[in-house]
C-alpha cells in the first residue's frame, strides 16, 4: 500500500465494496435457492437458472436446506 491518502482510501472503499457485494450476493442466493426449493423446483432447474452445475448448487445448499427442514425433490 503506497501513494497518497486519497488513493489508499478509494482503493480501500473499492475493495470493501467488492467484499460487501459478495456477501450480499451470497445472502440473496441463499434466500432465492431456498424459496425455489420450497416451491418445488428441482436442483437441475435451480442450477440452470443460476448458471452453475447441479453438483455445485447441491454441494453449496443441500446440507443447509435439509437442516432447516426444506423438503427437497430428488436430483
Amino acid at each position, binding site marked *: 500500500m503506497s501513494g497518497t491518502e486519497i488513493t489508499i482510501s478509494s482503493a*480501500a*472503499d473499492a475493495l*470493501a465494496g467488492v467484499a460487501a*457485494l459478495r*456477501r450480499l450476493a451470497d*445472502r440473496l442466493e441463499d434466500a432465492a435457492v431456498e424459496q425455489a426449493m420450497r416451491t418445488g423446483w428441482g436442483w437441475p432447474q435451480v442450477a440452470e437458472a443460476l448458471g452453475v452445475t447441479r453438483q455445485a448448487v447441491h454441494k453449496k445448499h443441500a446440507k443447509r436446506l435439509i437442516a432447516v427442514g*426444506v423438503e427437497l425433490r430428488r436430483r
Partner: protein
Amino acid sequence: MGTFSSYLRTIIDLGRSEASKDGSATVEAQHLLLALAVGPDAAPRQLLAEAGLDHAAIRAALSREFQHSLAAAGVTVDASDLPAPSYPDEPAPHLGTSARLALERGMDATARKNPRPAHLLAGILLAQVGTVPRALELVGIDRAALAERARRAASS
C-alpha cells in the same frame, strides 16, 4: 496455558455461532470480536465497553460498514428489505482468513509465552484493512489506541 486454551476454545465456539447467524460459512475476525464482547473474561469486555463497544454496538457498526461498503460499489440497500434466508443453528465449521490473521497477530512471540484474553483483542484490532477496522472507523473508534490499550492490559 490450560486456562487460556479453554478460553480460546470458548471464544472460537461463540464466534462460530455469530458466523452462523450471519450465514457465513467461515468464522471471521468480526465474529471473534463479537465473541470477545460477550466472552467469559472481563478484560476484553471491559476494554471494549470503555470504548462504547458492547455486543449490540459492534453489530450496529458492522451493519453500517456493510451498507457503507455497498454504497461505495454504487448499491443502496435497506438491510430490513433484504430476504432473510433460513440458517440452521449449526456453528460455522472453519476459521476464515481474517480470523486466522487476528490469532497470528495476537499471539506474537511475547504473547505465546503467557497468552492472555486481551492478546486476542489486540490481534483483532491490529488489522489495518478489512471489515473490522472499517466498522470501527465508521463509529469513530481510535482502533490503534484501543489495540495499544489491549496490548498493555495483556502484559500487565
